[in-house]
């Protein structure tokens, strides 16, 4: 949620808490913000701006399947589904909006044909099997569903790794690197730079 775009009207809960902290002169560590934020009862802030509730949940679930929470934040922790909903609402052209609505509908249709349920009502195993069928990144993208999923997957991945959690917690981000050093030791425990 910290990765949300601040616009004039929309202020995420986390931002609200951050501001409150600043007003009180209290510095709240980032890691605490989410805990505080999640203790708030669901508010309007969780309402999708573009997607209907069911599509929003579908997006959230697919985001979680692509980048799950492990010992580090996942796509949901980074608010990727909220980011994509906002992008569809404010950033996307009409054509892109239509494409995403059609794509989600198509995923639901596939779920119905395969498992006789809409995507969000499938079991986790069924969801994974469906997504893996769509994830033909190594294969040929010979149908529209796979092409749509490639775009959606990239939206999730790029949304995650450009979020604060993905870019600076999961990976390393250096705001002010100083002198470039071209050849430093790297061990298997080290993380990549996000940019």
């Amino acid at each position, binding site marked *: 949620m910290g990765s949300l775009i601040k616009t004039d009207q929309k202020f995420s809960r986390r931002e609200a808490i951050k501001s409150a902290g600043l007003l009180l002169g209290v510095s709240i560590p980032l890691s605490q913000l989410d805990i505080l934020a999640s203790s708030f009862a669901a508010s309007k802030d969780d309402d999708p701006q573009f997607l209907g509730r069911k599509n929003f949940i579908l997006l959230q679930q697919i985001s979680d399947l692509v980048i799950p929470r492990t010992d580090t934040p996942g796509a949901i922790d980074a608010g990727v589904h909220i980011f994509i909903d906002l992008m569809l609402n404010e950033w996307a*052209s009409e054509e892109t909006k239509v494409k995403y609505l059609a794509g989600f509908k198509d995923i639901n249709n596939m779920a119905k044909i395969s498992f006789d349920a809409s995507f969000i009502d499938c079991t986790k195993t069924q969801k994974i099997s469906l997504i893996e069928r769509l994830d033909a990144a190594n294969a040929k993208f010979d149908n529209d569903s796979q092409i749509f999923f490639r775009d959606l997957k990239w939206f999730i991945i790029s949304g995650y790794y450009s979020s604060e959690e993905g870019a600076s917690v999961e990976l390393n981000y250096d705001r002010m690197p100083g002198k470039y050093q*071209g050849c430093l*030791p790297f*061990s298997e425990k080290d993380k990549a730079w996000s940019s």
Partner: protein
Amino acid sequence: MNSDFDAIVVGSGISGGWAIKELTERGLKVLLIERGPETIHGEDYIGEGKAPWELPYHGAIPEDTLSKEYVIQQQCYALNDATKQFFVNDHQHPYITKKDKPFSWIRGYQLGGRSLLWYRQSYRWSEMDFAANKLDGYGIDWPIRYRDIAPWYDHVETFAGISGSKEGLEQLPDGQFLPPMEMNCVELEVKKQIEHQFPDRSMIIGRCAHLTEPTKEHLELGRGQCQSRDQCERGCSFGAYFSTLSATLPAAKRTNNLTILTDSIVQSVVYDDTKKRATGVRVIDAITNERRELSARIIFLCASTLGSTQIMLNSRSASFPNGIANSSGCLGLNLMDHIFESGASAEYPGFKDKYFKGRRPNGIYIPRYHNISSRDERFLRGFGFQGGGKRPSWQRAKSMPGIGVNLKEQLRKPGSWTFSLGGFGEMLPDKRNRVWLDENLKDKWGIPVLNIECTLRDNEKRMLKVMSEDAKEMLEASGMINVKPYNNSAPPGLAIHEMGTARMGHDPKTSVLNKYNQAHDVPNLFVTDGSCMASSACQNPSLTYMALTARASAKAVEMLQEGIL
């Protein structure tokens, strides 16, 4: 003579910046006219230092804005949400091309112009480049040689701050360099292999206008060391890269000889048929549309290659019905850019235990090696390569299969080292590549818009093919795997090295400007941006514009003092 100013400089990009610095430092009262708004160094760098998640839409420009306002500008790698204020709105600034002959005119209309946006690569031309036209007969002979410009390269490099390594190469003369940036391990390895296996080739670290170790002169202007953020196009309040705003403008301001007029479009140069001189410029207020004339003893056009040529074509008088200083009829002809988008990329299987720190705003350079000591039968002139090695991060996921924990774990590590080489080649001067004013379409200020026609011809096409083959060959010879050559056709203009259209030359019958960038026909009119170029060489041209501008400025003041002007 009763003029408002000693000199008027039109345009505040790299060339205009140098003109105001050199002219004011020599005591002239100078008016700088910029068509775009004022930009304040630091304060107006609104995206500077922001992490991706701190930018609206993580830095992506809304799709409708892109397609409506930046239909051409979006082709430029540097356009994003944090830089878009430094690019023109294509809708407001139209030009005309034929459908099958696109030309990408990338522009920045603000104080500082494209000096805020440039990629900062800075290379000298060599004797070979100035002699090329005479040698093979394409274009006209340059009226200057390397020795004429060498001291001016020294002068501009010292002030601008150019980082680089001394290499002793005949085709790419050394200069006054700040310490070079580092190569990474894979670059050092490729350098070793290329230089070993191709004795006539070398690979060097890019020479770039970044302060790796600021001098007293740089520090006095408020400039500081490069921090390897690689977000230069957003603006750098450290002034670590050379721009008008970081360097030449503050230098000119401290002389107290400079007046700045922004949001003011120069429509044309005023010519007095009886005095046979330019007497000033006609200016349109970009916001109010108010029109007025401003006068000066000398005029410097530094409005960019096509900008200056457009102004000149639109400056019609009884003496010059086809544009000021255009008795030769050459004005608008011989447009050039660099040819690019041909090269190769590959993976390097080793150095898995090595990584880098920092985002180096610079790459490597392979200077030209064709047609130097022996003649290549396939094409005239030559090309160099830019490129570099890195370990890609999560961005490689675009072509990776998989989802879930496995994908996430893979992306936590950097990918294998990759290396890329992209050529930049010389385009021959050809009078069929040209611009002219449209008879019907005018912009919102009533100025006739430009028609641009520029296409690649046989020599360029042959060169592009060899670029890609050579890149592949060198990468394979360096122990790379998955070598992928490419040769995509990029529209001319997109290298953003457009030049020519008001060329320098010995002969007033075949050129617009003389050896001091002074119009043959109009002695107090100087044109020192890319329009003056008689050929394109293959090096990034900005450093040469700087040197030519400084040289012309010094000469103009000398002529004023001697009473010749």
